[in-house]
């Protein structure tokens, strides 16, 4: 990166053309399937409560609104459209996540998010596979449960292992004192990142499914082989996490509780609590149709299309040059 003068883009002109082709492909894909393109605010009055996402604060002041957040995903706004009767919708948007910068991260990135009323997680996974495999011209994905993936590569059962066993397994990467404040899900995230992910989808993509209920986020939870699992899926190719989807939680009471749990976790880890988006909850109270939804990173999709390993190569100006 540093060899180019700082005013120059980090993406080549050939990559810019591929980016434009990718956008045209995505729009064609959804037009053919009758999914409506929508636009929702990038700047909102509320941010997410998610304990591991840090929204970027904005100092906006207008018409009585003071302060806002650049959105980490268009999820709440799009669900409000669904509750208002929009039907199948998709959006290509810029989203913002503070502190995230690396070979696969930039604090501002391009996200493709879409929702399908009456789809289950399995039906939406089939549509994700259509889109990704058409564009990348690759084989259809395999499917592997979170539990089997963890057992195969991290050598622990994420549902049965005691906290003590999980922590000991993590000592390959972290000192015992670093592990103290990490918690069970933090340990699982560490093992997922360092022991499992690099092995996922070397040739063809792979869906990881049936996440622990504690990592459900906004997905429905049901019992599977005697343990509660989230109807959440992610797609990986060449060790790169490409998308995250849910069979969406529609129960407003449960959603309220999850927001409160999130804020408790934020407080415990020293992060500011986030105000709960009452407009989103009001939409759920009114009735979010049964649906499945997914968010897919377009920058990473383009990296995989072009065989590039650094996100800067597909961005015009990553944060340091923006």
């Amino acid at each position, binding site marked *: 990166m540093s060899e180019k003068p700082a005013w120059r883009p980090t993406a080549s002109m050939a990559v810019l053309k591929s980016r434009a082709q990718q956008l045209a492909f995505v729009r064609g894909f959804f037009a053919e399937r009758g999914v409506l393109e929508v636009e929702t605010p990038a700047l909102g009055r509320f941010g997410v409560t998610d304990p591991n996402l840090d929204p970027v604060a904005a100092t906006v002041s207008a018409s009585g609104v003071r302060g806002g957040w650049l959105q980490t995903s268009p999820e709440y706004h799009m669900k409000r459209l669904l509750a208002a009767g929009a039907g199948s919708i998709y959006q290509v948007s810029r989203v913002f996540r503070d502190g995230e910068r*690396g070979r696969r*991260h930039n604090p501002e990135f391009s996200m493709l998010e879409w929702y399908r009323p009456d789809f289950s997680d399995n039906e939406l996974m089939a549509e994700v596979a259509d889109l990704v495999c058409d564009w990348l011209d690759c084989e259809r994905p395999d499917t592997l449960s979170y539990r089997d993936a963890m057992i195969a590569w991290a050598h622990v059962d994420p549902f049965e292992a005691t906290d003590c066993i999980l922590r000991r397994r993590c000592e390959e990467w*972290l000192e015992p004192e670093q592990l103290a*404040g990490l918690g069970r899900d*933090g340990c699982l995230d*560490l093992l*997922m990142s360092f022991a499992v992910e690099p092995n996922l989808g070397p040739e063809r993509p792979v869906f990881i499914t049936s996440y622990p209920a504690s990592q459900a986020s906004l997905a429905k939870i049901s019992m599977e082989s005697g343990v509660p699992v989230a109807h959440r899926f992610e797609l990986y190719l060449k060790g790169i*996490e490409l998308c995250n989807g849910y069979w969406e939680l529609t129960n407003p009471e449960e959603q309220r509780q999850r927001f409160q749990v999130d804020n408790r976790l934020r407080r415990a880890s020293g992060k500011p609590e986030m105000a709960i988006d009452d407009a989103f909850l009001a939409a759920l109270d009114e009735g979010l149709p049964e649906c499945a939804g997914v968010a897919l990173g377009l920058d990473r999709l383009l990296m995989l299309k072009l065989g590039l390993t650094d996100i800067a190569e597909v961005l015009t100006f990553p944060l340091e040059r923006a």
Partner: protein
Amino acid sequence: MASYSTNEFRGGLKVLLDGDPCIILENEFVKPGKGQAFNRVKLRNLMTNRVWERTFKSGETLESADVIDQDMEYLYSDGEFWHFMATDGSFEQFPADAKAVGDTVKWLKEQDVYTVTLYNGSPLTVTPPNFVELEVVDTDPGMKGDTAQGGSKPATLSTGAVVNVPLFITIGEVLKVDTRSGEYVNRVKSS
């Protein structure tokens, strides 16, 4: 003492780890979309020169190490220490011990300028310039007509370094030597 949080980590940053000064070589940010973020960091321990790989939770901090590189002129050795003087106009002098001087000892010529890395104000390492010019003090006699091609022979330089040189090199000549490879580059002048 200042400290750096993981999102300030970048190549070249000097930090304290396990009590030793280290330089960050690589910093990789790893995070599952909805999960905990980590930084996988490669650092070189400046005391031992060993490369360490460590993982940090995002938000963890490391203390900054008071490590600076400074140009200094080599003055003399008293047998125990090698004395250097800052070229920034302060004329401040610093004694470097054998550990700090290390292999650089064989390239030390009085009045030449070296990079001295100071840790808490004391020399930690001494790095020679990429090229030095040194006089040959001992080598087998040169053979007439032996010019560009042909074999090589060892030559001892004024600092004690021994380098392989072409057969035509004679005692008293000044040679340009690459300190990274220890190889002869060319003759600078004939005496």
